[in-house]
Structure formats: C-alpha cells, structure tokens
C-alpha cells in the first residue's frame, strides 16, 4: 500500500519549479544595477576623476584615457557629468513617484470610502487626465509654470496620480465591506480612523508595487522632458539634457550615447526589480497596462 514517495523516485521533477521569489535571477540583476548607480550617485564627489562643470579639457574629444566618455562642446568631462547626473535624475524621480503615490492614494481613498458624488467627481477627473498622453499634458503644464526640473516633477505628478487612485479606490471598495472594518466603525471609530488604521495596511502593498514599477517610467519621462528643454536647464548635468546637447553634435556620438546608456541602465534595473517584486507580491497586477 503506497504511503509516500521513497528513495526510488519514479517521477522526474516537473519543469514548473516554483522558485523562491526573492531569488529570481532577473530581480537580483536589477537590484545590482540599481544599487551600483545609487552608490555611484552617493559617492560621486569622491569617485569622479574631474569636476563635472569644469571646462578644462579640449572640446569634443572622443573617449580616451583621461576622459573615459570623451568631452563635450564646452570641454567638460562627460564621465563625471554622467555620474553627477545620477544625483539629479534618481532623487527627482523618487520625489515624483512618492508625490504621485501620496496624492493618488489620498484621492483614491476619499473616492472609495465616501462614494457618492465625491467619488464621481474624482473619478471623472482621473478619466480626464488619463485621456491625455502624459508627455503632452506634462508639456503644457511645464510651459504654464516655467521650465525647470521641479515644475517638470509637478507636471508629471498631475498626470500620474490617477493610476494610484484607481488601485486604491478599488482596494477600498473591496475592503470597505470587510467585517473588521465594519465592526470598528460600529465601535465608534470615525471614518478617518477606520481609513487609516484598518484599510491602509492592506492597500499599502499594491501601491508600493505600483510605485516600484512606476519608478523607471518616472526617470524616462523626466529625462524626456529635459531632452525637450522643458526640464533641467543648463548647466545642470542631467542625462536627458545631455543627450539633447549631444544631438546638436550628431557625429560626436559619445556625447549622447553615454548619458542615454545611463538612463537605460537605471530604468532597466528598476523594471527588472519591479517586475520581480510584482510577481512576488501581487500577481494580479500583471494585467495592468503600462
């Protein structure tokens, strides 16, 4: 009578292994890539060979022993500028994601919890904003407020909050009728309290996953706006604007390629990591379109 599988295992392992989520190779690679850039950003003042804004080299030189990434039209070392660029792009993108997440979460929570016309207004506003390609609306906002990196962040926040709002709102709609929330309200907790204590921990997960997935996108759109001249202004060493300057000196390929490569590395790393996180924490989110 068979009880269990013994030493002589007649069944070969199926090919659908379930790996421990945290050890996914792609996730680790992504984490390493991001960590490397973050580290470079933090240690920039100590590791760059030359000051980023010093115009001390022959102009428009291809990569060589002194200037690993070559020099630009003002004789600045591109390698140093690329490393310093991390100190601009990474924090601003983070700021963008956090602000969008907070704004979207608050609005979504209000819409979901109170329902009625408040819900209607907020969701119509969300639909309206999402009816736009985000770069275009961001361009209009930046044009209205004046082109600089902070306004660019603000502009993108204005177009990004709806995704968070939708997620949080649907979470709240499901959770609102959960018994433990109802019982706490019956015990006299105010709406705000119930929202904060009972619902927030559950809604936090998907929001964090979404934010992680959005980080790469934030870097892309901020550098895109800077590329168009609507974000970081010279002489700030920002990757997008560096690519834009390089475009004017088209045959000096090193001026555009390296900053863009840096963007690619950061976004790729963030997306690898975000994807892995998403698979581990919230598989349903695989079907959101981004």
């Amino acid at each position: 009578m068979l009880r269990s599988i013994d030493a002589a295992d007649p069944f070969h392992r199926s090919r659908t292994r379930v790996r421990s989520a945290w050890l996914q190779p792609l996730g680790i690679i992504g984490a390493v890539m991001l960590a490397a850039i973050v580290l470079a950003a933090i240690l920039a003042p100590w590791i760059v060979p030359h000051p980023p804004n010093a115009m001390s080299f022959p102009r428009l030189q291809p990569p060589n022993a002194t200037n690993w990434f070559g020099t630009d039209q003002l004789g600045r070392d591109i390698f140093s500028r690329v490393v310093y660029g991390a100190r601009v792009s990474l924090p601003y993108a983070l700021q963008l994601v956090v602000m969008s997440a907070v704004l979207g979460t608050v609005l979504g929570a209000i819409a979901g919890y109170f329902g009625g016309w408040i819900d209607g207004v907020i969701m119509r506003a969300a639909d309206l904003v999402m009816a736009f390609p985000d770069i275009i609306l961001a361009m209009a906002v930046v044009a209205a407020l004046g082109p600089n990196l902070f306004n660019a962040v603000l502009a993108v926040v204005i177009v990004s909050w709806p995704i968070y709002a939708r997620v949080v709102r649907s979470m709240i709609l499901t959770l609102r009728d959960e018994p433990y929330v109802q019982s706490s309200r019956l015990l006299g907790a105010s709406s705000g309290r119930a929202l904060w204590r009972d619902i927030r921990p559950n809604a936090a997960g998907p929001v964090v996953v979404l934010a992680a997935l959005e980080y790469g996108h934030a870097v892309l759109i901020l550098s895109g706006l800077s590329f168009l001249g609507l974000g970081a202004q010279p002489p700030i060493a920002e990757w997008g604007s560096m690519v834009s300057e390089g475009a004017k000196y088209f045959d000096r390929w090193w001026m555009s390629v390296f900053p863009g490569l840096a963007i690619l590395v950061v976004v790729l790393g963030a997306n690898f990591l975000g994807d892995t996180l998403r698979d581990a924490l919230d598989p349903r989110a695989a079907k959101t379109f981004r």
Partner: protein
Amino acid sequence: MTVPLLQVERLVISLPTPDGGRVLAVREVSFDVGPGEIVGIAGESGCGKTLTALAVMGLLPPGGRATGRIGFDGRDLLALRPSAHRAMLGRDIAMVFQDPMTALHPMLSVERQMTEHLRHHRQLSARAARDRAVEMLDLVRIPDPGGALRRYPHQFSGGMRQRVAIAMALVCGPRLLIADEPTTALDVTVQAGILRLLHRLRDELGLSMIVITHDMGVMSALADRVGVMYAGRIVEEGPRPLVLTRPRHPYTAGLLAALPDAGPDGEGAQASRLQALPGAPPALADLPEGCPFLPRCVRSRPACTGAEPPLRPVAPGHAIACPVDPFAQGAA
C-alpha cells in the same frame, strides 16, 4: 461475463508541491466500468475523484504524473503517446464538467463549440456537422435546436447550458461519458431533469458513465455501482442499493448519515439533528500511520493503527477497506 469497457488498475497519481516535492493524491485506485454501466464515485473534495477522471482523460494538471494501467478497449491509455490519447478524447471518451457557465466558451457560438471537434474527429462537412448537432440538441430536449446553434452560452439558463454541454460531449458518439459533479452548480429544481436526462441517455444510447459527485442523492438516482473514495483510495465499493442502504465502511455511513432527512434511498425522515462527520480529511502530504480515517472513526479498534487496511470483500461484488464490519453477524 462482459468485457469491461474501462479498466482502471492500481492507478497512482502524484502532484508537485510548492516546495518542490511531490504528494500522492491518488493511491492505487482500481475499478471497472462495463458497457452501458453507470459507475458513481463519491467522496469529499480533495479525495482524488476528479483527478482520477482527469487521468482517464489525460488532462492532469501541469506536473501531475500517473502510473498504473487504464485499459480502454484493451489499450492502456497511460502508455499511449499524448497525440494518440488526444485522438480518443471527445470521440471515444467524453467529459462534462461541473459549471457549464465556465466550461463553455463565452465568446463562441453553440454551433461552433458543438461542431469543431466533430469535424476534427470525423472530417464532416459543415452542413453534416450542423445536422448532427441539431440531432444531439434535440436528443437532450433543447427547444428550437436550429436557433440554439446561433446563440451563445450566456443566453441560456443554467439547466439548458448543462444540456448543451452534455450534447456537446456526446456529439461524436463516445462510448464513455465522465460527468464531474454534473448537477452541483444547478438549481435544485433543475437537477432532477439533468439526472433523468443522463439516465435516459444511458438507456437509449447504451452509454457507459462515470458520475463523480459528493451528493449521495445524485448517486442514488443514477449509479448502478458506487465507489467511495477517501484520502486517495477507494474505501468502499459495491452495488448501489447495497452501499447506500447498508454502508459497511464507517466513512460511507457517516456521509449518508450527514444527509438532512437521512434515510438511504429516501426512506423516512430520521432524527431532526444533522449528524456531521467530525473533523476533516487528512492532508495527503502528511498521512499518519494506519487507517487515514482513524481520527474521525467511531468504530476504531487497536488493529486500525497498524498497517493501512486493504480493500477486502464482505459480500459478492462488495468490498470495504476496514477491518471492522458491523454487519458481520447480519445485524441491520
């Protein structure tokens, strides 16, 4: 002695576990189905009855492996190449699932769903296939079969959908139909109609059936012979009247006693208290020594903690996997 249409011999099914190991979900199940015979397999969720059916169909979940022998028409289905096995599905052996709302494709017309495998297996023309489909819909008593072909599953009621599913399964003329909980998803008022339909189909077409259910009422209405499964094995098998009126295995007795208005074969109302079986089936990955039913058994004896009790006959054609037989002295 008629040759059985289906012979399941010592079927063992293992499944992968999340931590990379394997668990035995079906542990040496054997039974036969004769031509024109309806065999019922009863048991709680997780006892392995659906997996057994899926093994016959070659549709085990990813990572599932089956060993043993499943003889159909003299050929061992488990030894067939997947393509050869697939050629028999729908054509010789067909299956009807529990919920017709999810089992039928919401975006394909009834005609498409009923004729695609017919044309694949029998190379019929569109017109011939359509005629055959109408014939089957008529057989299962769907009104306006021609119009029904043009419609979509969501436009039918629950009972009608299941009839369509049954017609769809039978359109190629299979000899064996496996019905997995055919009435569970339906309203009580509709269930009787489906049961009558299945019975009639057996009578008119000579169809053999395996009916899988946890509902003893369904069992009593349909089955000729019954097998009761627990923790991956058959613990009682025998002719339906015997098993349902005089269950000899404590688990079967418990299942029947748990019915409201319990009274096998519908005889008389019993005490108004529901007698639920205490406890729950054991986790298959962690089976204890001895009889798996032991923790919930009211008849246990010291002998039950030894080896797992084998199936032993207690009457011609009736066997139980229990060393204790309450009817041994003929007491009712």
